[in-house]
């Protein structure tokens, strides 16, 4: 054992073990317990440890669960698409059109070190019926009645999250743009491509890994986001995380909450893998 610890492999394992064990245990142990809970049932404070599929049956048949799950995935998809689409030009601008790259990257990251909770809350204040946006538009005389479609719907959730995730999209895409060898672009022009063709046939395919990374890092946590739907989603914008929280909080039905968590995770994983496969294949189709 002492001999092994002096080898390269031994030192590496020993040094990385605390971190990986910590994360590993805190992923595996809760998951194991969640799985156990998902087969139990609860009446008030009593946990009935008889194994049963009841929770899964309920999750599968309850229209509310199915509706919220589907909506969560759709909203997360919309958020991902909106964030990436809004972020790509910025990443492109920083990579190719400015010399002050460091400054721009810093400018883009600074807002995100403020509390996420407060940023979402701020959007609620901006989009509200008597909020900043409506009052500003009214005092400028652009509208007479407050706009009601701004807050408490899917739009508000998508807008707020597209804001919240901005650097998560910009940075990976920027890195993949920055990695492109500039002579590749010159070669494409030299071979007769127009700027647009060059972007579609060279730049875009080379940034597919960045787009995939950005999409995953946005999509996965968004499906399980709790704060944004609670604050700006209203009843139309509620997502699966709100339902899970209710099970662990007010409804006090942990087994069902555990089941919903697992189902949510499985669905997210499935959609994410599907997305990676599709995006990779699509990137390869471009010739």
């Amino acid at each position, binding site marked *: 054992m002492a001999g092994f610890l002096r080898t390269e492999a031994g030192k590496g*394992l020993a040094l990385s073990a605390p971190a990986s064990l910590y994360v*590993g245990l*805190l992923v595996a142990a809760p998951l194991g317990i969640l799985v156990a809970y998902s087969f139990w049932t609860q009446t008030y404070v009593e946990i009935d440890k008889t194994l049963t599929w009841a929770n899964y049956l309920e999750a599968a048949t309850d229209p509310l669960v199915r509706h919220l799950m589907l909506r969560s995935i759709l909203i997360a998809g919309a958020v991902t698409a909106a964030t990436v689409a809004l972020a790509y030009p910025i990443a492109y601008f920083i990579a190719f059109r400015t010399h002050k*790259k460091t400054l721009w*990257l810093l400018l883009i990251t600074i807002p*995100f*070190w403020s509390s996420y909770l407060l940023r979402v809350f*701020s959007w609620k204040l901006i989009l509200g019926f*008597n909020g900043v946006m409506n009052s500003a538009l009214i005092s400028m005389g652009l509208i007479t009645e407050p706009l009601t479609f701004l807050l408490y719907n899917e739009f508000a959730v998508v807008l707020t999250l597209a804001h919240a995730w901005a650097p998560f999209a910009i940075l990976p895409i920027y890195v993949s743009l920055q990695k492109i060898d500039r002579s590749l672009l010159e070669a494409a022009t030299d071979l007769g491509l127009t700027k647009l063709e060059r972007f579609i046939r060279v730049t875009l395919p080379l940034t597919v890994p960045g787009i995939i990374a950005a999409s995953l890092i946005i999509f996965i946590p968004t499906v399980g986001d709790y704060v944004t739907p609670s604050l700006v989603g209203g009843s139309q914008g509620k997502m699966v995380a709100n339902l899970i929280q209710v099970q662990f909080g007010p409804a006090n039905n942990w087994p069902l909450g555990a089941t919903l968590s697992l189902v949510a995770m499985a669905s997210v994983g499935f959609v994410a893998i599907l997305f990676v496969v599709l995006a990779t294949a699509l990137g390869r189709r471009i010739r």
Partner: protein
Amino acid sequence: MSTPVSEPLNKPLSTAASKPRRRPLRFPWLLVYAIGYLIFLYLPVLLLPLFSFNDGTIVAFPMKGFTLKWYAQLGEQDTLLQAMVNSLIVGAVTALVATSLGLFAARAYVRYRFKGRELSEGLVMLPLVIPGIIVASSMLVLFISLGLKPSLTTVILGHVFVALPFAVSIMKSAFDDFDQSLEEAAFDLGESVIGTFRRVTLPIVAPGIVASLLVTFTVSFDEFVLAFFLSGNQPTLPVYIWSQIRFPAKLPNTLALGSLLLLASVLLLLTAEYFRRRSAKSA
């Protein structure tokens, strides 16, 4: 959860070898878009400080007079101060634990080739992509099953989990720029293994350590969902703010508090960025 790992920040200047040609006659669409995007990014962030000085409880235009009373009232609220202390404790402990774990792991990843390295590297990044609600609910269930009551301790356990990817990636970039032969040189000159770590490794990666401490502290300080599930009757600051958001009368106080937190976060992170760059430069 707040922001991605700022790893790419130290690359751009060095790789900006070929400069785009200037085209003075074309309308700079991208620049205009970029400025518009910045406004979108900063709007909600700057709104809080703006209205925190507004002499009125409604956040809408036109604004009323200027006042500092919302800030003055903050000092009188005991629960707020307690929540602040809780958050500081949780943040400090989280930063220390996550940075230590990250320091060792990052060194292993950069320095040694061993079986399971990639698996381990992937594993410690996992917290970044697990939905917060699932981390929170599963940890709550785990800790209750283990007989751990929700408290600051359980919040710390959870925060170390979510802060670890940040610590590992910052420490990894600190070690990436670190020439391995520096340690061999120290060892060759007669220094012991521990002495080499103390006299060479530590001073050179020190800026990275400071950056990691500051970033992980901020991650913990801002984190809400985990704390909401795991803090029990010891609320952290975000949990306190959450409880205040519901009451319109408390709104201006919340704005004032949020503005102060914003200022503190930005200052901390600019400091962290400064140290991170110094670490990149010195190596």
